[in-house]
């Protein structure tokens, strides 16, 4: 199984979730994050003093999937999250050795359905 981490624009969360549902992903965990990268932040002002806000609001998705789902999941995210502008985000994939569903104690693939 793999864990797919995706950092996306907050406004793309809706479409990404819809796209994931279509490819059969049934669960995920999301959290607020702030990104630093080529997109750059904004320059704000407070009483005449400017300051740079370096970190751009992002949403981080963590999705654990079985091997067979990795490619469709990644493709679905890319398609739904892409706007073509700087800051659309990154996806990265790591190996997961075990998954457990707390409620039932089921393990691995079974825990993911």
């Amino acid at each position, binding site marked *: 199984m793999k864990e797919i981490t995706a950092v996306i624009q907050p*406004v793309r*969360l*809706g*479409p990404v979730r819809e796209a994931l549902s279509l490819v059969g992903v049934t669960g995920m965990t999301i959290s607020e*994050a*702030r990104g630093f990268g080529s997109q750059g932040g*904004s320059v*704000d002002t407070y009483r005449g003093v400017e300051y740079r806000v370096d970190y751009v*609001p*992002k949403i981080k998705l963590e999705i654990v999937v079985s091997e067979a789902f990795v490619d469709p999941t990644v493709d679905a995210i890319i398609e739904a999250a892409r706007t073509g502008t700087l800051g659309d985000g990154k996806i990265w994939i790591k190996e997961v050795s075990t998954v457990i569903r707390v409620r039932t104690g089921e393990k691995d693939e079974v825990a993911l359905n």
Partner: protein
Amino acid sequence: MEYNPIYLDIVWVLFATALVFLMQAGFAMLEAGATRAKNAANIIMKNVMDVSIGSLVFWMVGFGFMFGANKSGWIGTSNFFLSDIDPATDSGMFDFAFFIFQTVFAATAATIISGAVSERTKFAAYLIYTVAVTAFIYPIFGSWVWGGGWLSELGDNGFMDFAGSTVVHSVGGWAALAGAIVVGPRLGKYTAGKSPVAIPGHSITLAALGVFILWFGWFGFNAGSTVSGNTGLIAIIAVTTNLAAAAGGVAALTLSYLLWKRFDASMTLNGVIGGLVAITAGTANMSPAMAALTGLIGGMVVVGAIVLLDRKLKVDDPVGAIAVHGFAGAWGTIAVGLFASATYGGVDGLFFGGGVGQLLVQLTGVAAAFLFVFSTSFIVFKVIDMTIGMRASDEDQIRGLDISEHQAAGYPDFAPAIPLVSYSTPVLSGAAVPSGAAIDETIES
């Protein structure tokens, strides 16, 4: 020292002025609370600037158009910059008190609009409109009713609008309607299938604070409209005002519970204001019981109008200003023709044996307000839209107007990145759930 009743009059008018002034804080909190955190700085800047600009413009020209010498019956034409007021006399001083009371009224009419066009209107565009409403639109209509103009001459008693259900509230509400139509709904407010999407505000506590402050201010708004402290009328006005507000809140809560089986906080808050707006016209002309009834129906009108605007007319009004001020204001003005009782203010309405005469006058005034204000406001907004543009870009709406218009977040220390509410999946009772793709189109593009 000899007794001069004018001093108590001035004291009373200034007391009322202060209370009405504080309604600006009420509107600011209600509007900010009922919209998203990313637009909070923008909302409060609109509120601060409409009272600032409005105060100056009304002093320069608005007051003259409204209360200046009015030969035509259509507009006042003197007393610009208060040039007719004599500061050497006590009656001149009373005139200053009257002027400042009218100033805060004008500012109220102006600020009503800010809520309805919030979360997607450019700041500069809003400032220009504020000038138009406080310099011309509000004063001209006002002159017809309170400045000795043609509406004040209709029928036996003239058009009756004691404290401004129509003159202030409907005027604000219909201008808000024009603005909301011209600027269009917020990005993401309607799905491609045109179903409304709920976009809850960011702070119910601030919204409730705003409502309590408005209710407080309304004691000044209505009872101050006697512009005299030497009259017992102010007591019955306070009674009718409070009962109508209470009844409006109860009605909105009950009706929304019957419709949706929920104790809807936002509707209840709007219902209270609806009750207050409704009683404003007849506050000095009704019995307590009729006032409660007027407020009760006012609260229901608000619920109905919000649903009508949101679902049928597809007019996006984030804070409910059009329903509350436009519709409930119209209802309250009509109610005078129905429920007025000679025991209280000398005039009988239809249900108290006064016939339909006054009712027709009331309907005329309501219609005149709608036609004049909606059309002139629509033109002004359209002109602004075609020149500097009314609507913030989609990208700016996504980032929020705080950053895009003011380059500074309203809550720099607390800025949620996840829209915890998933605006993209409305579940409409009885409506088909729109497909994901359809929503996507509307919201993101």
